[in-house]
């Protein structure tokens, strides 16, 4: 299938603020011109499903807590839906009885979302209904109780439910993304590890340094980030608890300490060390500090990623001359098996949530692009069309990947659906953004 990208129509003004990613750093950082980062969708998709999301009753339109606009923005970000512009909405029903379906059929909207926000004893009640416009059938309705501060979370939850009802895939709009933001020009740069909601809202600094920070990795419970920091003038791996900011340096051995990857049970990190002056894979038991060596090859072995059952580790190695993806058993002294053979470069494997494919960076006709590798069929499917795409990370529902790309000289983020059909390019005004990593579902979200 040929995917055709369409420029976002400039007429989308009514919802534009909702579609913008605003990154405003807190505190003193906000004084820096480089600190504010705004990402807009620059390229949309043509064959997305039209859906009308009516502003929720009981709320002023606009503002960060506008439930309808958050829901619409989420659906748009998924790439699978095209929300109607607000100014084209012919009516503002807030309850099912007020809906005249012929109005919405004329607008060629396939689906309709309406709802309201109303105060109640314990906070705010948010109700919504989802309709099939053609049949008039109510597909979904639910009532959530929250607070003013919880309105965005409630809106993301509504988008999750709508997405699941219409696609059969749980929505991942209530999740978060970690990434590295870099300001300044070499050699004086400022590195910040950030987390934000999956729509880019509410960014906060996890840690920052004048030395490089790289390779963030979410623990399976979503409560910790492991990352590499050079703040001690050499690489070291830290694990930081997000709720408290407490952090622990878990590996600062001589040479390289890199590429941390959490085991599925969250008890171990696979990582890269260079104890013999060359990179090999190890497994670090976080409780005992015990190290198990997985590879001992004179090549570069790095970028480990666990299999779903924790029995093996996928990784990048150039033992055959160029970077390719391999798999090795997670015990010591196992024989590694090469997985990728097409293209001269395949690196940084990331497992899909269903465990059936790997996202990786491949060299495709002279350009570095994001591809998926099917572990059963061994087919490589190139998803993106940039020159320097890297760092793919699956959303926990497996439907979308976020990755890093370049827009001119700047690093920025982009999303692509796992089948490659839908692409969303995001552009930033300032700074360099890289290494996006999608969080797991929060336990309560499952």
């Amino acid at each position: 299938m040929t995917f055709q990208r369409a420029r976002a129509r400039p007429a989308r003004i009514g919802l534009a603020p909702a579609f913008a990613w605003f990154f405003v750093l807190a505190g003193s950082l906000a004084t820096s011109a480089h600190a504010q980062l705004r990402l807009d969708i620059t390229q949309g998709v043509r064959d997305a499903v039209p859906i009308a999301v009516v502003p929720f009753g009981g709320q002023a339109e606009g503002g960060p807590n506008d439930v309808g606009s958050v829901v619409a923005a989420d659906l748009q970000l998924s790439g699978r839906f095209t929300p109607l512009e607000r100014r084209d909405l012919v009516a503002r029903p807030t309850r099912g009885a007020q809906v005249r379906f012929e109005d919405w059929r004329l607008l060629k909207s396939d689906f309709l979302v309406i709802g309201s926000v109303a105060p109640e004893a314990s906070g705010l009640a948010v109700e919504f209904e989802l309709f099939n416009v053609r049949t008039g059938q109510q597909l979904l309705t639910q009532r959530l109780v929250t607070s003013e501060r919880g309105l965005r979370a409630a809106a993301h939850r509504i988008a999750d439910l709508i997405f699941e009802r219409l696609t059969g895939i749980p929505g991942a709009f209530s999740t978060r993304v970690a990434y590295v933001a870099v300001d300044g020009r070499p050699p004086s740069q400022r590195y910040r590890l950030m987390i934000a909601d999956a729509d880019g809202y509410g960014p906060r600094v996890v840690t920052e340094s004048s030395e490089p920070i790289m390779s963030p990795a979410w623990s399976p419970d979503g409560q910790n980030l492991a990352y590499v920091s050079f703040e001690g003038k050499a690489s070291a791996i830290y694990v930081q608890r997000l709720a408290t900011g407490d952090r622990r340096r878990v590996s600062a051995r001589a040479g390289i300490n890199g590429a941390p990857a959490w085991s599925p049970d969250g008890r171990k990190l696979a990582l890269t060390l260079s104890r013999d002056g060359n990179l090999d894979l190890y497994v670090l038991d976080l409780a005992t500090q015990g190290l198990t060596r997985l590879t001992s090859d004179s090549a570069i072995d790095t970028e480990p990623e666990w299999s779903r059952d924790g029995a093996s580790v996928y990784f990048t190695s150039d033992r055959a001359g160029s970077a390719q993806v391999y798999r090795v058993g997670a015990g010591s002294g196992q024989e590694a098996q090469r997985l990728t053979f097409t293209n001269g470069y395949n690196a940084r494997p990331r497992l899909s949530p269903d465990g059936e494919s790997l996202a990786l960076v491949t060299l495709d006709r002279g350009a570095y692009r994001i591809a998926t590798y099917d572990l059963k069929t061994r087919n490589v499917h190139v998803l993106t069309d940039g020159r320097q795409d890297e760092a793919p990370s699956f959303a926990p529902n497996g439907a979308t990947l976020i990755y890093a790309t370049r827009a001119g000289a700047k690093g920025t983020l982009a999303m692509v659906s796992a089948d490659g059909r839908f692409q969303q390019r995001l552009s930033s005004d300032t700074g360099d953004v890289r290494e996006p990593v999608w969080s797991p579902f929060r336990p309560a979200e499952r």
Partner: protein
Amino acid sequence: MKWTHAVAFALLAVGLASCSKPKQVQPETTTQAPVDSGAQTSGLGNETGPATGATAGAMSAAQQQALAALQSRNIVYFEYDSSEIRADYVSVVAAHAAYLTKYPTARVRLEGHADERGSREYNIGLGERRAQTVRKALMLQGVAESQITTVSYGEERPAVEGSDEPAYAQNRRVEFAQVQ
């Protein structure tokens, strides 16, 4: 960390194309490094104030002079995806080896770098491999293992910005950072 020494060397580094101690350099004074691979031209040192040897501590005048001479030849550049020392940089490595063998208490920190193409952790591996190549070359020329430390920054600390071959060529490098 011999902080005062590092500052002194940064100031002495008249020919330093790409400073490895960014904290000591005002951002305003940074300049684009030259695009001709190899030769380093004047960059930071002559804008950061007069050089002074006053903080060089116990080092002899002769050693200070020898070290200052090395500062204009403290980067080795590499070909794409290669960690081989090119013929035109053999003399750079030899000059450092001569200094380090003459002054056995001297220390060097080799900082390996890669260009921005490809994945980041793999590039850490490429930078490490380059640093190790230079380390082995120094040791073959009589430098003690204990005099050398290595670090790889991969693509994380580019010398210059840019996504073209001239920029890449400037970024695929090993820098000699004298720590004593």
